[in-house]
């Protein structure tokens, strides 16, 4: 075991807290591959939700999803692509893109790097193939090699091997809050001096087993995903990955990196209520938001990127949590969810939403909550329905998951003066 003595030597409270900036991003969603394509469609309010093609969805209540159909596999130098799950390909591709964006890709072999990623499903597609063969041929005749990339921590191991990284990794599997928790951990690790550079984010793939599960819970909408709308009927699933390169400010300055923004705060909590339903009053989600705000020094929030799944219970709970934290000001802060455009990316949701929020700061543009038509008195927030120029300096991004995992992060415009 790593810890040699439970005297726990390091005195973290005495460590000078360092600033953490974002210097690179990589993104794949149903909108496409890369920052440019994703942002063009996000700001235009385009939906990339289509009839699912990777499996037969005709027998399900919902038949659509946000498949990243423009992406198939990534180029591999060290590993054999055929043995890797789609989840590994997504993770490796977006990480390479983020490292290239940060202009650090050639240096990563020489510096200790923290990899902190979130996933709910891991290599679920491989698991699905394996289980189907077990049923067909029996356990003894199923190939164990088919589960080579099944477990949730294997994709991180593959990424380490492929990019020949040095350092450590931690995988978070906290349902839909996984990506945000992974960013939060990377943020804390850098600001307390454990690492100067971290690769963080999240990913998940579209697969029938999970789709069937959400379908069995009647959580998938048979029509459009309409977060905060009175007539909302549920969520739509998506797939993709989002990776951010976090860096200690001085380290970024020394290598003349282009700074995209700053991570300012992170908070997490548990509902302690129910496996699938959120705690209805929003009081526990509010704890995560409050912690993040406190961590960031209580900045003014200009925009809230909501978890906004489009399910009846999540949206009311999230509204209650926002109202509880911000009081009357809650009705003024613009709020939107990107899930109606690209779907719910589960473990990848928090990371992709953090990236989109960062872009909304960079391009000073409010992101539209598409498909919103009828206001719901129980979700009486300032829902942004149209993309528009807006002076966004600081954002709050929320993620809430099954089992009552809540996580929030604060991202802000980078200013030299803190």
């Amino acid at each position: 075991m790593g810890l040699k003595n439970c005297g726990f030597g390091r005195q973290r409270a005495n460590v000078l807290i360092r600033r953490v900036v974002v210097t690179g991003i990589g993104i794949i969603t149903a909108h496409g591959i890369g920052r440019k394509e994703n942002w063009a469609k996000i700001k235009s309010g385009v939906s990339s939700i289509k009839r699912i093609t990777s499996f037969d969805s005709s027998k399900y209540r919902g038949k659509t999803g946000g498949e990243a159909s423009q992406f198939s596999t990534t180029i591999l130098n060290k590993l054999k692509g055929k043995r890797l799950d789609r989840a590994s390909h997504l993770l490796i591709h977006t990480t390479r893109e983020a490292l290239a964006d940060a202009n650090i890709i050639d240096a990563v072999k020489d510096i200790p790097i923290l990899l902190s990623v979130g996933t709910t499903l891991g290599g679920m597609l491989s698991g699905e193939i394996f289980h189907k063969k077990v049923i067909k041929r029996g356990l003894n005749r199923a190939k164990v090699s088919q589960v080579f990339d099944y477990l949730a921590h294997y994709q991180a191991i593959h990424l380490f091997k492929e990019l020949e990284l040095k350092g450590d990794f931690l995988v978070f599997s906290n349902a839909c809050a996984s990506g945000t928790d992974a960013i939060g951990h990377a943020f804390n690790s850098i600001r307390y001096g454990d690492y100067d550079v971290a690769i963080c984010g999240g990913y998940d793939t579209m697969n029938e087993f999970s789709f069937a599960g959400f379908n069995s819970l009647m959580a998938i909408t048979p029509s459009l995903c309409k977060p905060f709308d009175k007539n909302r009927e549920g969520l739509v699933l998506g797939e993709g990955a989002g990776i951010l390169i976090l860096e200690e400010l001085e380290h970024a300055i020394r290598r003349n990196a282009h700074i995209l923004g700053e991570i300012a705060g992170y908070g997490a909590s548990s509902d302690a209520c129910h496996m699938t339903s959120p705690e209805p009053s929003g009081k526990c989600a509010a704890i995560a938001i409050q912690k993040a705000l406190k961590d960031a020094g209580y900045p003014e929030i200009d925009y809230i990127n909501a978890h906004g799944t489009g399910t009846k219970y999540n949206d009311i709970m999230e509204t209650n949590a926002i109202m509880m934290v911000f009081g009357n000001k809650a009705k003024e802060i613009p709020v939107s969810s990107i899930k109606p455009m690209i779907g719910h990316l589960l473990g990848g949701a928090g990371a992709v939403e953090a990236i989109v929020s960062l872009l909304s700061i960079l391009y000073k543009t409010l992101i539209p909550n598409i498909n919103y038509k009828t206001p719901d008195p129980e979700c009486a927030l300032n829902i942004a329905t149209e993309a528009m120029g807006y002076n966004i300096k600081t954002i709050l991004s929320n993620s809430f998951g099954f089992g009552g995992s809540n996580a929030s992060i604060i991202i802000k415009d980078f200013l030299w003066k803190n």
Partner: protein
Amino acid sequence: MRPVITGIIKISSADIEYAMTRVKDMVRQMRFVNSLVQLTVVSIGIMLDEAKINIPVGNNDISLFLGVDDSVEDIKDEYFNGILKEGILGASPLLFPYTTPNSLAAQVTIAFDIRGESITVPIKNTHRNVMEYAVECIDGKHTSMAIAGGIRLQDKNLTIKDGRYMAEFFLLEEAGNAEKRGSKIYNYSWE
């Protein structure tokens, strides 16, 4: 902020019946969806009780950091087999939520009303990372107490009654907090 250990528990699934005699009525009366959840909840219940933590906790003073290895696949298998044998109607809305690795941590937070952060880390070595994470969170003043540990598959050829799973957890606490509570502090070290 100096974290110290104020609670330790290690229970095999072979000993679950005996363990059930050590828990409070509140835990004994709970119904569990599967034996992994039972082992996790019962282990942590005994540890909290022995560390003189009032349950239900009812606040966000305690956080939970849980590691799971391949053992969580046993839950997925049951769900998957349902779908594969019976088609989509076999996708159980009861089992599906338990296929996410954080279902064990979720059940602990629900059972003991723990509202601090709960983090699940899927990994082979279930304890190292979560212990480090818990120490970091206490060090960084993000929490004053943390339950850290995990569940591991001891031997996939063993049945549950023979000890297929092992639960190991620690209660970590900020030293000042432990002193104030009059907690027993374990002088525990490992490699």
